């Protein structure tokens, strides 16, 4: 054809393609107005004091009231360093080879009580979190103190600039600051007040917390992002009974489910009853794992630990205990959900991921090498929390261990005693559940695998592994870091430090008119509600 025709065809086709595929994901224009009813699984344990708890029951309803320095983009489903956007910080930059992190804060931001927001609030919050010797306030309970061990000092040279001086380079610090776990508290409010009320800078102002019933928010008219939030209000309704929660979702009494609380089967049932419900499966960044006390026999013997890991058929567990609502993976959340997941071929090469017909005999052989035989059997006590889903998981594992010659009895520990029991090492083997804030190796490994960490319930301590953890933490080249983290995951599973069984999926249910509420690969990070709007 002629050149002119070809050009015109090309332009037309390109235009068509651009129109068809090039339009942004948000194809509708958000409308302002309306309120949402959101499920709350239990009454808030410590009110809005996110810094004093780790439970989603506090983070989920408290996030709308607060702001971070930076946050994971609510509209992007997979979190990573590339999806971090600014909230109270307008711009930031790493200086001195990732040793200093400078934040340029937004101007004209006000707290809900009218006080101006300045760098003083940021310095106050993070000095308190890292328990600096001259910190003006102290948290009664400080679960994430370890996130800030690398912070040397925090400087606030002027009201709109904050500088974090680190001891060594740590690109992951940004990931931890972007998690829902890291809001900024007001310097003029004692931290204890957050347990009863919330003074934040966030898109919603607290209207009322009727204990045991609901938390109600209204739109913050002075919010620093113009045109946000879209919604006029939010209501988090406390429904403690599972059955009533499901009934509420089905009847439309609530519009949004509670993250982490809807199993695959429940979601299927809801979808069948109300086909227009939107169900989104996603990984919660919560995994099932086995902890083994390495300070005492028999689990101080690496062969025994490896035998336990090999004996458990992870894929069968996913089916039996979670009805398919989970995925197998190593110590970082697997692909396609997590950013650091091992590639399939690496995963399948790990101990315990082969065919059960191969793995179980190898497990038996390992046990024999460790001196365990039918004449000299191994009897242990497995502990777990006294909650149905944990007990189901533990029962499955006990059954698997039976098949290789380990007799395990089950002991249930009350929730209030669990952490104390595990931290003290008052157990032999346990079926455990671990939730991690951001999908980041630093957040995971320092907490759960580092020598001497209180949550390293297995008392695992390996010098080489510590070196690997420190190394990846300071690695600036993303490709190199990915390879180092992959090697770390392999080593941890080979050592059977804390055999990982599966990563749980949640099936987030919401009414179809709820827009822009996108679950991320961590339940703790997407509750800000700033971008959410109602289509009806």
């Amino acid at each position, binding site marked *: 054809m002629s050149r002119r025709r070809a050009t015109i065809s090309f332009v037309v086709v390109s235009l068509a393609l651009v129109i068809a595929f090039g339009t942004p994901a948000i194809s509708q224009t958000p409308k302002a107005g309306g309120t949402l009813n959101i499920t709350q699984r239990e009454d808030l344990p410590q009110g809005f004091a996110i810094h004093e708890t780790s439970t989603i029951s506090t983070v989920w309803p408290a996030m709308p009231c607060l702001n971070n320095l930076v946050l994971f983009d609510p509209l992007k489903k997979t979190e990573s360093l590339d999806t971090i956007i600014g909230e109270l910080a307008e711009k930031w930059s790493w200086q001195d080879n990732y040793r200093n992190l400078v934040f340029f804060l937004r101007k004209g931001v006000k707290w809900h009580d009218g006080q101006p927001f300045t760098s003083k609030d940021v310095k106050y919050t993070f000095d308190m979190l890292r328990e600096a010797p001259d910190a003006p306030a102290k948290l009664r309970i400080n679960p994430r103190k370890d996130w800030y061990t690398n912070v040397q000092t925090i400087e606030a040279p002027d009201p709109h600039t904050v500088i974090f001086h680190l001891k060594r380079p740590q690109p992951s610090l940004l990931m931890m600051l972007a998690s829902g776990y890291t809001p900024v508290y007001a310097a003029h409010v004692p931290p204890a007040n957050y347990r009863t009320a919330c003074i934040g800078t966030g898109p919603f102002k607290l209207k009322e917390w009727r204990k045991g019933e609901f938390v109600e928010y209204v739109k913050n008219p002075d919010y620093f992002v113009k045109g946000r939030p879209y919604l006029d209000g939010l209501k988090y309704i406390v429904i403690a009974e599972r059955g009533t929660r499901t009934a509420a979702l*089905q009847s439309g009494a609530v519009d949004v489910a509670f993250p982490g609380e809807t199993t695959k089967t429940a979601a299927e049932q809801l979808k069948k009853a109300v086909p227009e419900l939107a169900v989104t499966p996603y990984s919660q960044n919560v995994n099932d794992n086995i902890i083994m006390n390495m300070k005492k026999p028999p689990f101080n013997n690496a062969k025994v630990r490896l035998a336990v890991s090999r004996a458990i058929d992870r894929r069968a567990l996913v089916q039996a205990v979670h009805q398919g609502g989970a995925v197998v993976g190593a110590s970082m959340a697997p692909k396609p959900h997590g950013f650091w997941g091992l590639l399939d071929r690496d995963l399948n090469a790990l101990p315990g991921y082969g065919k059960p017909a191969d793995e179980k005999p190898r497990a038996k052989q390992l046990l024999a090498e460790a001196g365990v035989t039918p004449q000299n059997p191994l009897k242990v006590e497995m502990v777990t929390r006294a909650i149905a889903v944990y007990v189901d998981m533990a029962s499955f594992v006990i059954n698997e261990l039976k098949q290789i010659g380990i007799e395990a009895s089950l002991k249930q520990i009350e929730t209030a005693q669990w952490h104390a029991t595990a931290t003290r090492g008052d157990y032999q083997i346990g079926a455990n559940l671990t939730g991690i804030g951001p999908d980041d190796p630093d957040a995971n490994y320092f907490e759960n695998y580092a020598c001497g960490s209180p949550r390293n319930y297995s008392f695992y301590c390996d010098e080489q592994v510590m070196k690997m953890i420190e190394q990846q933490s300071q690695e600036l080249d993303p490709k190199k870091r990915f390879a180092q983290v992959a090697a770390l995951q392999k080593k941890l599973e080979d050592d059977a430090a804390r055999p990982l069984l599966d990563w749980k999926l949640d099936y987030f249910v919401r009414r179809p008119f709820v827009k822009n509420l996108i679950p991320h690969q961590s339940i703790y990070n997407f509750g800000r509600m700033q971008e959410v709007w109602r289509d009806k």
Partner: protein
Amino acid sequence: MVSPIGVPVDLVVVGAPARPGWGTVLGRFVRRKPLGAIGGAIMVVMLLTAVLAPWLQTHDPIATEAAYTLGRPNAEHWLGTDHLGRDIYSRIVHGAWASLVVGVGSTLLGSVLGGIIGLLSAYVGGKTDLITQRLLDILQGLPLLVLALVMSASLGPSIRNVIIAISIPIIPRASRVIRASVLSIREMQYIEAARALGVRHLRTAFRHILPNTVGPFIVLCTAQLGSAILVEATLSFLGMGIPEPYPSWGRMLSVSAAEYAQKAPHLVLFPGIAISLAVFGSNLLGDALRDTLDPRLRGSR
């Protein structure tokens, strides 16, 4: 015996009344109190189910079967399966065992302990009686469920502890009934006579008074059994009753039944029906026994 004129006659012995055999007593009971008989039959069926559970089950009650979750009742799973694929019929059968062990165990424990306390307290009388009754008042002042809840929280989850927790509120109630019964008997003439004859106290207590309290005691037990089963179910429902892995009717209702009730209503229906039947049976039986054994108590608590 043959009479002098060759016609067979039956000799009737005058004096001692003929004692009716068990069969006659039972037959009389069934005819006069048909509701009570039904109640008794239900309890017997439950007892047999509990005792024969391992033989009556069709599947292992704790074995999960991922492929067949929330299945409707059919030929293989008579009452369907739950969210983990466990057979509901087998779990109900074993639940009978758990509920009966706890129900009967706590009722017996509470009633016997309370009965002994009531018996001794009434017999000794005086200040000891007064103090004991006040102490028991303290226990009784708290509503049954609240006391059981707090006890259960204090003792921790285990079948033994649940039995203890439920038996504690029963003790004062049992003691009160037995004490009233003993007080009324104590004044009777033949006790005075026995004591006048110099029969030792304990002997008097156990040989003469005790057998007469059997009636009220049985009535008390059957009355409390129903409420014990209900309290156990409630405790399990609230998460503080019989722990895993024992199947418990109450817990079957709490954990996931309501959540999946749309797809599998049998999850909610069958355990609830089982609990109701058990309590219903024991109440029917208790009512009938009370009417038969102790007419004075007819119609009261």
